[in-house]
């Protein structure tokens, strides 16, 4: 039904899709697999009309199709249900379902007709209990998912793309989702299904296409009988070799961080571990496994039950206390959460420790600049001009500036969330060396990365997370990527 051939999509500085093929048949559930950054999201957006491909052809039911805008895509019969649900919280269920194609006469919305039609669609989905008048913002996640699906159906979609639809759902809700998907496919609707959970794919999927680094590496694998090991090796077979610094030969020092029974409802539960001075501990897991949330909870930026002790003493809740007691966080979204892009490198470096440079609030700018210059030199931030705005630095150097922030005044614990995101290969190796060097100076490091090889290569010890619980803890040197991915995806402890 849908045939995509040689799709290429180029963004400034990155080839997100580099020749993707996809065949979807009517009435099948076609699963799309691939690691983070493999190009799944970009591919979906091409189908949804958000991005236009630079090369390649798309044919739908034998005719050339080129969705030039989201409206085009909808007219073609493509509907997309995004990972982050794109519903308007303040509007009612019916209004959301028919958003953009309201039942209207002469510009006046016919609300009764809208409600009637909404009720029909919801009944068809097996959810007559969702009232068309209810405000969407007050619905539970599962119900929102149904509303999203109802919207797709209201367009008479022939092809429905679902991006991790089960991520927000509890177990029995997933069963209901599958029932709806089966009904749809029985009517000849095709579903492109994206999920990280292999067991789901085995249950609902018909065929699998695997993407890696923007290319199709396997087309039309049978979803039920392809061995996990084959899928995983297709997803991971790498072109890029990472260069990791050697691990320290010295045994780690005293315990710096101790986390006891950390739990946050819906994110993670019963997480306990410790990090010693000079040790790098990595958290491996998928998006939604709770890895970043754990980091935030340790840092006091997220509410959680349980205890966090630094150097044997409990840390009072709140980021201000965490920073004062010697923690530093390099957050996941460097630009949105860490940097003041218009400010100088110096101002960014000293932001976390301003009082250390000031007397009665008066900043000693000479001392501030000298310290920033020293750290820029230590981490080899280029160009070495610390007065230029941080915006003008490359991603790797921006990340170094964030790291430098926490080297002022001697931190005891660094929390690194995706430290190499958006950093090119050469700069990665440098960052790895910097991080290892910091650990060798006696700082305890807790690392989160969505890239399993990075966690394994850089850490001394690894905790594997799945759906908010630690399923494995062990020496990083004896684990390999396959085993970790197996654990993450199959939910089997090693």
């Amino acid at each position, binding site marked *: 039904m849908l045939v995509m051939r040689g799709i290429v999509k180029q*963004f*400034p*500085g*990155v080839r*997100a899709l580099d020749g993707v093929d996809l065949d979807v048949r009517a009435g099948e559930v076609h699963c799309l697999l691939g690691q983070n*950054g493999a190009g799944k*999201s*970009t591919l979906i957006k091409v189908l949804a009309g958000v991005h236009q491909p630079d090369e390649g052809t798309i044919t739908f039911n034998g005719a050339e199709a080129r969705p030039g805008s989201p409206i085009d895509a909808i007219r073609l019969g493509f509907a997309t249900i995004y990972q982050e649900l794109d519903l308007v919280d303040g509007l009612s269920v019916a209004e959301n379902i028919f958003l953009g194609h309201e039942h209207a006469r002469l510009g006046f919305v016919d609300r009764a007709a809208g409600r009637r039609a909404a009720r029909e669609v919801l009944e068809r989905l097996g959810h007559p209990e969702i009232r068309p008048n209810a405000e969407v913002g007050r619905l539970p996640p599962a119900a929102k998912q149904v509303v999203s699906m109802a919207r797709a159906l209201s367009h008479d979609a022939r092809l429905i793309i679902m991006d991790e639809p089960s991520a927000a759902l509890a177990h029995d809700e997933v069963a209901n989702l599958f029932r709806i998907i089966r009904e749809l496919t029985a009517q000849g609707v095709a579903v492109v299904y994206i999920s990280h959970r292999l067991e789901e794919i085995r249950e609902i999927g018909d065929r699998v296409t695997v993407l890696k680094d923007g290319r199709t590496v396997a087309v039309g694998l049978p979803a039920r009988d392809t061995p996990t090991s084959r899928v995983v090796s297709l997803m991971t077979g790498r072109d890029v070799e990472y260069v990791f610094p050697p691990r320290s030969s010295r045994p780690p020092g005293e315990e710096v961080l101790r986390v006891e029974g950390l739990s946050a409802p819906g994110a993670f539960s019963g997480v306990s571990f410790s990090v010693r001075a000079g040790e790098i501990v990595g958290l491996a897991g998928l998006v939604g496994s709770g890895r970043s949330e754990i980091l935030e909870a340790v*840092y006091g*930026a997220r509410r959680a039950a349980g205890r966090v002790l630094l150097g044997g003493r409990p840390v009072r809740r709140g*980021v*201000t206390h*965490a*920073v*004062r007691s010697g923690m530093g*966080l390099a*957050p996941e979204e460097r630009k*949105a*959460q*860490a*940097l*003041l*892009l*218009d*400010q100088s490198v110096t*101002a960014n470096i000293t*932001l*976390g420790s*301003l*009082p250390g*440079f*000031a007397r009665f*609030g*008066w*900043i000693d*700018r000479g001392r501030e600049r000298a310290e920033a210059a020293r750290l820029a030199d230590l981490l080899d931030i*280029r*160009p070495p*001009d610390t*007065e*230029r*705005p941080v*915006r*003008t*630095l*490359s*991603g790797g150097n921006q990340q170094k500036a964030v790291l430098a*922030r926490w080297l002022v005044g001697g931190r005891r614990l660094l929390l690194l969330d995706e430290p190499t*995101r*958006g*950093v*090119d*290969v*050469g*700069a990665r190796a440098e960052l790895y060396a910097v991080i290892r060097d910091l650990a060798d100076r006696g700082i305890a490091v807790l690392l989160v990365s969505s890239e399993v090889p990075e966690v394994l290569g850089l850490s001394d010890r690894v905790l594997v997370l799945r759906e908010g619980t630690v399923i494995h803890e062990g020496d990083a040197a004896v684990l390999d990527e396959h085993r970790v991915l197996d654990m993450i995806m199959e939910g089997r402890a090693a």
Partner: protein
Amino acid sequence: MSEPTPPVRQAAGARGAQADAARTNLLSGLRGVGELRHLGLFVALALLVAVGLVTRPDAFATASNLVSVLSLAATIGVITVGATFVIIGGGIDLSVGAVMALASVWATTLATQSYGPVVMAVCAVLVGTGAGLVNGLLIAYGRLVPFIATLAMLVAARGLAQRMSDRKTQLVQQPDNGAIVSLSTTRVLGIPLLVYVFALVVVLGWVVLNRTTFGRRTYAVGGNPEAARLAGIDVRRHTMLLYALSGLCCGIAAILIMARTTTGSSTHGDLYELDAIAAVIIGGTLLTGGRGTIMGSILGLLIFTLITNLFILNGLNTSDQLIAKGLIIVVAVLLQRRNLKERAP
């Protein structure tokens, strides 16, 4: 989508970075001479002065006219300094005019006046700071949107001022409390004291914004509150202090307006919030926060005051004056947006 950059692009980036570095050096060199980014404002100001010299050569360049321009600018000027802090910090304070009126009324009640001029001044400052603190608490800890919290304060402070004064204008008692009025009548080097007060507030504001941790944090909180929070800055406390600072400036402005008009009144400072905000915006401060300067705000204010002055000197319609001011705001912001685009990488 993350943006892994291939090595080739990085080399090109490095070359661009060198050019950038050269430009930055040039800029920091010029900074000693005068803020380059305020060049446009200086030009606008010079144009207005030229217009004044051409249209009213007799009246414009006189000492008395310039002094009256500065005296007029002083009251709103002090408020503008506070507003600059709030707006750089990512907020907005609509209550400034009303808070100033309340402070002037509170300081001129018979009860307060009986304690003498010093207590009057302290009273004005405390009332202003207190009202600002209420704004700050509502916004930082009550999680009210700044626009709404300060709008409520605008209405309520005016109402309270009317109630306290019984809608009557309260005179500053002379000669007992003449010291207040002398801020406007006593001149040093031909310039009234209240202009010096204004200048002092500007200098202090500049120092606090550019040389202290408070100022640095203001930019951080306005520019990227999440980054500020994760860097360990107490964003809520800082936000609260910003509104308290704005209130403090309103209190000082209340003293100046009592000096200039010899009265305290609930009608003082009507629409001052608009003038102050307009001056800040013309001065290049982003309403979204994180970027801006005291210098720019003061230049913006002087431009506004000069326009008023020119219209009065030439006997032109005040309605036309408002239209001109509206146009200037739009033009200034459009020009700045172009500058921003050029500077973006």
